[in-house]
């Protein structure tokens, strides 16, 4: 299948999931889907939750923090104790404290930054009970926050924004588990490995060499890795490993899975606020930026490596194949990696580090713009809504009204919370990068010097603070310094945004609705799409331009000669 047809099929499948998955999710969170009630109700009973009772935003946020805190402690404990626990055929020892901290934070925050090689560090129990469980629940937490914010817009004069426990459980039960299960079968059918048996030892009689081939319960972990925009693979090579991503079909399915929920949530948003055009406007902004970066990177990768071209040594018929998986080729790998960096997934089918400067810039920019194109599950929608709020504020003023979005007046409190939610990420990225380049422990991290080394550090914190989890490679992140600071970046980037978003949801839900008229600033038009894109680009561009100019831009202007 040519690249063009791959994209076309993907677009059609996404359009379908936008419409049907979107309205299905709306039904799930409105409580209209009940086919698993016999599984759902006992869970509430065990947890002593009244599914009918609703929470104010501080209680909702409190429940979320408590849940995530417990998840963090449990995950950390499992990783530290894995040596004495079952399902450990390789007899792997305890994960070191710093790495266990970083990994626990990473999976609880839906980041899946991996400072380790899965096959040689994590027991099967850690992979399944610690990491995969978090891939489900952290994704459900993200969607829950988005749904709470949607309720804030949809409700009038309501003190509550839903029940966190119900949103969490319904998200896992009705959305993530069924899709992941069905797609797990597809992965198995395509040849992904799924076993609890230990690594296979193969003796090559011809050469006399003995090869140890790692295996594990991989196939059923794959779908949720993508669907929940988690990105943490079983193996170190992630999507480039044939046991994780065996065929072109699974590559396409992977890209579809990681895009489908963030995209479909815009439909859910539109449906719940009563106008699907409102969601379409945001989707258009996401799609335009996504398409631009995809075009950029595809073009840059198809051109080949400028340094190789300058050396006139070899031709590059397949484009820049350095670090690409030969089974897929340069372009599909670009699609996979762009999709995964624009969705806060962070899984890779090729080495990001080996992208051309411009292609690499495409990867990094998706994160620097705040992971909104379309971003992570839930987080993409609630973050773009923060940008939309700023766009509404400026646009609303310019039509001569105090600004309102979907009938809700945007006043000092809303502006404060939106600004807080938007600013946490760049401040965390820039601040932690500045510390890293200033102290010895940080300076020894990158394997490259100069702008490329700087890019590696900048990328690491950008990826973690945006809960993306993709690595630029080249940075030795498994040190006490990077494990600890990375954990801080991930926590800030996750809960530093979620809490203001929930406060915003509470504030909006309690407001009355101003009826719209001819004088109202419309938020369901192409003009608004343009304004949202403008705000995203200007905020992201202005905050990261100086830093980026010292990394990828200067590399690009040097025609890649600074590589190495």
């Amino acid at each position, binding site marked *: 299948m040519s690249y063009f047809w791959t994209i076309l099929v993907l677009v059609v499948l996404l359009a379908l999931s936008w419409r049907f998955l979107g309205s299905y999710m709306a039904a799930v969170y409105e409580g209209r889907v009940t086919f698993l009630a016999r599984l759902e109700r006992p869970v509430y009973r065990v947890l002593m939750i009244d599914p009918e009772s609703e929470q104010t935003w501080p209680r909702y946020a409190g429940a979320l923090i408590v849940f995530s805190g417990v998840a963090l402690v449990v995950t950390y404990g499992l990783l530290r104790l894995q040596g004495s626990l079952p399902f450990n055929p390789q007899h792997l020892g305890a994960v070191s404290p710093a790495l266990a901290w970083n990994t626990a934070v990473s999976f609880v925050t839906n980041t899946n930054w991996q400072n380790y090689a899965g096959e040689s560090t994590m027991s099967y129990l850690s992979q399944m009970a610690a990491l995969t469980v978090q891939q489900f629940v952290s994704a459900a937490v993200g969607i829950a926050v988005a749904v709470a914010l949607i309720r804030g817009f949809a409700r009038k004069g309501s003190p509550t924004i839903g029940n966190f426990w119900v949103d969490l459980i319904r998200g896992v039960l009705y959305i993530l588990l069924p899709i992941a299960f069905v797609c797990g079968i597809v992965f198995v059918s395509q040849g992904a490995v799924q076993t609890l048996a230990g690594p296979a030892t193969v003796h090559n009689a011809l050469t006399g060499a003995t090869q140890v081939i790692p295996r594990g319960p991989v196939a059923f972990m794959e779908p949720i890795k993508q669907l929940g925009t988690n990105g943490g693979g079983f193996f170190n090579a992630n999507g480039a490993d044939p046991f994780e991503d065996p065929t072109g079909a699974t590559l396409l399915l992977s890209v579809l899975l990681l895009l489908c929920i963030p995209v479909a949530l815009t439909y859910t948003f539109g449906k719940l606020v009563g106008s699907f055009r409102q969601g379409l406007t945001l989707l258009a902004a996401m799609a335009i930026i996504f398409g631009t970066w995809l075009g950029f990177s595809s073009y840059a990768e198809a051109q080949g490596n400028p340094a190789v071209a300058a050396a006139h040594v070899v031709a590059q018929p397949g484009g820049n194949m350095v670090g690409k998986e030969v089974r897929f080729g340069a372009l599909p790998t670009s699609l996979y990696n762009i999709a995964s960096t624009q969705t806060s997934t962070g899984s890779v089918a090729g080495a990001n580090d080996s992208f051309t400067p411009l292609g690499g810039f495409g990867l990094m920019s998706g994160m620097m713009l705040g992971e909104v194109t379309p971003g992570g599950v839930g987080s993409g929608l609630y973050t773009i809504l923060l940008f939309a709020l700023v766009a509404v504020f400026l646009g609303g003023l310019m039509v001569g009204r105090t600004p309102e979005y979907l009938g809700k007046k945007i006043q000092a409190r809303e502006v404060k919370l939106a*600004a807080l939610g*938007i600013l946490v990420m760049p401040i965390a990225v*820039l601040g932690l990068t500045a510390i890293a380049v200033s102290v010895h422990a940080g300076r020894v991290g990158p394997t490259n010097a100069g702008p490329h080394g700087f890019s590696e550090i900048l990328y690491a914190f950008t990826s973690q603070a945006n809960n993306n989890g993709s690595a630029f490679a080249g940075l030795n992140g498994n040190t006490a310094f990077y494990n600890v600071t990375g954990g801080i970046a991930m926590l800030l980037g996750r809960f530093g945004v979620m809490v203001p978003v929930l406060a915003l949801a509470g504030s909006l839900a309690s407001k009355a609705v101003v009826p719209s008229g*001819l004088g109202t600033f419309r938020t369901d038009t192409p003009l608004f799409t343009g304004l949202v894109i403008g705000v995203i680009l200007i905020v992201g561009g202005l905050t990261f331009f100086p830093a980026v100019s010292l990394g990828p831009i200067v590399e690009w202007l040097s025609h890649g000669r600074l590589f190495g």
Partner: protein
Amino acid sequence: MPSATSTTSPTSPASPHGVAQSSSLFDPSILANAVRGSVTKLDPRVQIRNPVIFVVLVGTVVSMAEAIVHPSLFTWSITVWLLLTVVFANFAEAMAEGRGKAQADSLRRMRADTEARRLRPDGVEERVPASLLVKGDVVVCEAGDLIPSDGDIIEGIASVDESAITGESAPVIRESGGDRSAVTGGTRVLSDRIVVRITAERGQTFLDRMIGLVEGANRQKTPNEIALTILLAALTIVFLPVVVTLSPFARFSGASVSIVVLVALLVCLIPTTIGALLSAIGIAGMDRLVQRNVLAMSGRAVEAAGDVQTLLLDKTGTITLGNRMAARFIPLGGSTESEVGAAAQLASLADETPEGRSIVVLAKERFGIRERELGDDHEFIPFSATTRMSGVDIGGRQVRKGAAEAVRHWVIDQGGTPPPDLDAVVSEVSRAGSTPLVVADGPHVLGAIELKDVVKQGMKERFESLRSVGIRTVMITGDNPLTAAAIAQEAGVDDYLAEATPEAKMDLIKAEQEGGKLVAMTGDGTNDAPALAQADVGVAMNTGTTAAKEAGNMVDLDSNPTKLIEIVEVGKQLLITRGALTTFSVANDVAKYFAIIPALFAATYPQLGALNVMRLHSPQTAVLSAVIFNALVIVALIPLALRGVRWHPSGASSILRRNLFVYGLGGVITPFVFIKLIDLVLTALHAY
């Protein structure tokens, strides 16, 4: 009235001037005061109130310290221009305040040293300075006296010259009891004698409040201004780490950056333009209302005016000319139209009411019947509330005109029989929204006069344009539903409230507000007070009662209810100006990056010179040009901030498209052009 500025013509009837002395935007005396203010406002305690400009001030100090340690033409130039940025910001605010201060000064002169004639409880009159009067005192004012303080007339009737407050030179009648009993301190009694009970405490008179308002002494930030300040503070906070982290980033790359250049970058990136002009925009918005002779009691009300979705307009005086006009003579019972006209004219000769005059005018226009000299043998019968008709007895004839029922009874009393089609004609006229008068000559009913409510010219278009910006107009009238519907249709309002009582008005406002709409209304009577207080924008007429004025959040000194529409426009302009200048300010940053970033790392990464798309001469001229542009753009935009962005009634989308184009795209492009120009000038100076 005593005027502070030379441009005022206080008594010109064509353009009324009250507090609203239209001094030009850059009046020399205001300018001089503003220059002084821009230096005195450098006090950090003043600056801390404006977070954006405060950061510039701190940056200036840092830069100055660096310039002292490492003196060079470049470091000092940057320092001076940073300081000028703060000074220009102060200048903008001082300019906006200056206009109000000048107006306050002229009002103060008016208040000074009035002498009051206070009545002691025993009835003896004593002379005391007006400043000693307290609430409850009773004073006497006669022709020529200045009324010493605000109060209600408890005895007498007088004509009062209120031009000192309103600028309107025509005197107004004030009398005890009813809705016309309030008088304002500082106005002058022209005729007769009145006894006034003082209703204001010392320092709390209308004049005092007016002075406080135009001076902006206790100006508080409005909700939207606070929200915008938070956004600007956020934009300032995010650029702090952006700039501060550049230093370690550069060190990692083996480069070193000068502190002065970093400060310059920071100042260029934070939204100084809107930060400098924000308070000026707010003050100027209030000031633009004052120029229209409207006093807003709070900036909050001005802001709310921009959001108004429903306008409640009184029919009389706002939608229609205050008076009904004779439009048609309708003959009855065999008489001719000209007979009706002639009799009606006779009956109206002594009728000085506008209705009466309009009958005489119509008779002249239609039939050429001129005013006649009547002999001695006549007696005018004036209108009275009990007879509900007026007319003249001339010779043996008794000519009457009046309300249909009254004339019918009078004719029957005279032994006549009303024509059978009288009722049909009367109800037909009523249905059309007009008022019928019946004319009779002795026992014979001659016909009817149709008195029509005349809709003011241009109102239909005005309502049309209001509708296009999403504002609904509701006409309030005491007329019956039939009449109201007819006039509403003719005027083109969206809805009407007929037979309106204060309670019905109140219910209407509450219903609209429950639907989330903001409501504006005008009112003058005491019974309007609750509704004025309930409305989001309540404009009290200055001719109205004290209760009304205290309930509303604006006072219209001209007492012109149509002004509500202008108030809405001012509110919208205020908000648009804020949004447009914020957008402009942020869009400017793009060009500044392209000027400063290549300059910053020119030594380490000459490749970044490719980003120097403006081809600026040297790193130093590049940074300096950006800083100079950043400072000068504040001055360049002061007139826009004070006047406000133009606003035409049209749909939100077209307004947004236009403003995004002008201030968004313009904001991106303009600095590229001017930074290059400034760079060319600096290069020509050969200093760097």
